[in-house]
Every structure is written in C-alpha cells, then in structure tokens.
C-alpha cells in the first residue's frame, strides 16, 4: 500500500516535471540566447563597423527580438545562400536577413509577416546611355546572386532574349564590376544603391518596375509558436514606432515602407 502511494506520487511529480513537448520558442527562452543569421555584406541592413562589430538594421532588429524574449542575441554571419543550411542544421534559430517571402521558398521555410519592404532601383555606369529601366534590354546586366532582384532581372533577360545576366557573389563585387565597366547596369535596392557612393562612375537611373520586395523573418517551417511570436513582435515594432526609428537610424529621412497590402488580409 505504502509503496504504491509512493509510486503514484513519484509518477505525478515526473509528469509535472516533463514539459509538454518544448518547441523552438521554449528552447530559445530556456537557453537564454537567440541566435540570428544576419548577412553582413548588405548595408544598411547588415555590415560591420570600423572595429569589426556587426551593425545595421537587421542587427538591431535581432537585438530587439532578443530583448522582447528576455534573452541575449547572438549574431551569426551568413551569406545569402548559407541562410537555409544554417537554419536547417540548427546553427541559428531565426534568420533576420532580408529574406524575400516567395511562395517557392515558403515550401521549405517558415515566414513571418513582412518586417521590411525594399524598392529597387536601376543603377548604371555613367558612360552608358540609359534613360529608363527598359534600356537595360540587350545590355550586360548583373545583380547579387540569390536575391529577389537577381531572380527578377535574370527573368527579364530571358524574356528579352538578348543581353547577358551575371550573378556576382556579393553586392560589393556587383558595384566593382559596374564601375570597372564589366557590367552596364544593375538592379539593387534603393537603400543599397544610395550607399554605393564609394564606387566612382555609377549613377541611379530609374526605379525598377517590380512588386516591392517584401522581406520577412524566417525560421523552421513547423515552428508555429515562434512564427506566431515573431508576427506579433513585428506588429509591435511598427505600433511602438521602433520600425520608423530604425528606418531613420539606418536608411535615412522619410517614410519607411508600408508593410500592409490594400485589399487583402496579412
């Protein structure tokens, strides 16, 4: 009798101690660290300062998310193509890395609601005759491999059936190629284009006629708890004015992009 009561008590205590299947959100809070994949070759979203510390919009955004969760942030530098392996292999918890939320990619990773939206601009070499974006037809154009604008531009070149598309590995290489004359024009986010002043002999020509590039936070597809939290977090960032504050700090004066879309939910 006594032993069975003891056994029942032991069982009850164990049942309470065992968590009801901890998910990623629990893991992050329990571990006290939020590991974010950030691309640090993409100013003003991510870059390094003079003493090599990660800085930028995405870095601050990760820090804010960590602060909301009550944990410390750890910035893990990745390239654009490395974001997914880093996530899948468990090296990072989320990617705060300007990831465009395409339907094709959503088959593989879990997207939050958009946290930023880019407009894209056509940037050309000064010697090249170019008045509108359509003058890119037949020219040698390029963009940063694996980005939304690269996928768009490659599609355009295929559609035109003339000219050449070149995907360089980094944004810096794209501008280097452009200022050397290896490329006639490129498409890059307005934010990046305006920061391209270090490279001589290139100029912004026109806006690229693309649907704005909505970018979202990503994590594993099945982590609904975390995705749910991130959605609310993004909403709060806008609501509290932190979004506008970060925009002013990293991008400049003016209005940050509207993250809602007229006439549809989410």
């Amino acid at each position, binding site marked *: 009798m006594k032993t069975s009561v003891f056994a029942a008590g032991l069982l009850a205590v164990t049942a309470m101690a065992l968590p009801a299947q901890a998910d990623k959100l629990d893991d992050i809070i329990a571990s006290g660290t939020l590991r974010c994949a950030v691309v640090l070759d993409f100013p003003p979203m991510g870059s390094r300062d003079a003493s090599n510390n990660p800085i930028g919009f995405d870095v601050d955004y990760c820090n804010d998310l960590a602060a909301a969760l009550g944990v410390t942030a750890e910035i893990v530098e990745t390239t*654009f*193509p490395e974001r*997914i*392996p880093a996530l*899948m*292999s*468990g090296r990072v918890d989320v990617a705060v890395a300007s990831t465009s939320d*395409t339907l*094709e*990619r959503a*088959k*593989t*990773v879990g997207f939050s609601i958009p946290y930023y939206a880019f407009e894209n601009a056509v940037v050309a070499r000064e010697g090249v005759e170019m008045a509108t974006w359509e003058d890119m037809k037949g020219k040698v154009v*390029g963009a940063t*491999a*694996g*980005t939304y604008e*690269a*996928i768009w531009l*490659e599609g355009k070149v295929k559609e035109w059936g003339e000219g*050449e*598309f*070149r*995907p*360089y*590995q980094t944004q810096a*290489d794209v501008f*280097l*190629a452009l200022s*050397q*004359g*290896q490329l006639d024009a490129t498409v890059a986010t307005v934010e990046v284009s305006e920061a391209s002043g270090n490279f001589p002999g290139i100029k912004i020509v026109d806006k690229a006629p693309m649907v704005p590039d909505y970018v979202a936070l990503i994590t*594993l597809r099945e982590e609904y708890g975390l995705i749910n939290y991130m959605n609310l977090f993004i909403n709060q960032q806008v609501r509290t004015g932190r979004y506008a504050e970060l925009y002013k700090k990293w991008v400049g004066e003016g209005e940050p992009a509207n993250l809602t879309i007229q006439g549809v939910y989410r």
Partner: protein
Amino acid sequence: MFNYNFRWNQALNSLPQMLEGALVTMEIAILSMVIGISVAILLTLFRLSGNRLLYAIATTWVEIARNTPALFQIYMVHFGLGGFGIHLSPYLSLLIGIAFNNAGYLAENFRGALKAIPETQTRAARSLGMTPIQAFQNVILPQMLRISFLPMTNQMVWAILMTSLGAVVAMNTDLYGVTSDLNARTFRTFELFAIAAVIFYVITKVITLSARLLAARLFRY
C-alpha cells in the same frame, strides 16, 4: 539535430538543367587542360632554353600558379584585368584562370618527368645527327608526356573541381552556378547540392577511368 524533410522529386526535376551545367563544366575543364598542357610545354622549353629572361618568366608563372589560391587567380583574371579595362566574360575568366593554374602545376610535373629521363638519351640522339629540337621532340617529349600522364589526370580532376570557383566571377552556366541559382529560387539546398556532388563524382570517375584506359592503349610497349 537536423531538421529537414528531403523532397527528392522537386530537386530531381531540375536534373536536366544540372546536366547541361555539367556539360559546360566538362567543356571548361577539357579546354583548360588543352591550353594548360600547351603552355606547360612552352614553360618547360623556356626553362630548358638557357635564356635568363625566358627562365624568369617560366619560374614566375609556376611560382604564382602553385603558391596562391586558385580562387585568387580566377578573381584576378576577372577583376584584376578589369581594373586595366580588359573585360573578360565570366566564362573566359574562369577558363583562363584554371588554365593558368593548370599550366603552373603541369610545368612542375613535366620538370619532374624530365629528371627521370637520363641525359644520355639527349646526347645519344644528338650524336645520331638530330638537332636539339628534333631530339626534344622525338625522344624526350614523348617520354616526358608518358611519365607525367597520371599526374596530368590528377590535374584534370582538379580542373573539373575548380570550375565551381567560377561563382566568384559570376559564372552561372556551369554545374555549380546552375545549382546555386536553383538553390536561391527553391531553398532545396541539401538535395540540390547532393545531386551536384554525385554528378561531380561521376564526371571525375569517368575521366580518371577513361584516362587509364587511354594510357593502357597509348603506352603499350
């Protein structure tokens, strides 16, 4: 913990595109070997010539090709020459970069092979009335190529694998370029790169095996 569901069918749909990329990869590797072997023979001749300028050119080439990363060499062909207004397409940059690297390594292989050929053979050929060029061409060169044949297949394998470095000069039609482009679109990283790895493996295996068969036919005593 590895959190990923493999979906092979989606990735396998891209196989035709990747095989096209594999063809470009093989084309570059083969062309770079043809150029590399020709230049390496020239560099070997430079080093044998006794002319100090030619010797210096050959030595510099070999030193740079062997002691700097291939990635750097390819990057310099594209952006280094680009700085001087010489614009090469990604394809040409990659081809020249790999050929440059091949030539350096092969020249060193040839030097080793030459050491294995007794000098008395040249003297014997000369005493038969051959000119120095004839002696090199008819007696030394065939043996040199035979001795260094297997190291050459090794270099060929390297050339194939080095094509993946074309990404730094915006090459997007070779096997690696096609794979990474597909990856950016679909995020099916693991399937796509696993398939690419298998294709690379098969190509290098086929090349080494056929080189062995070729060697068995060419070098019958």
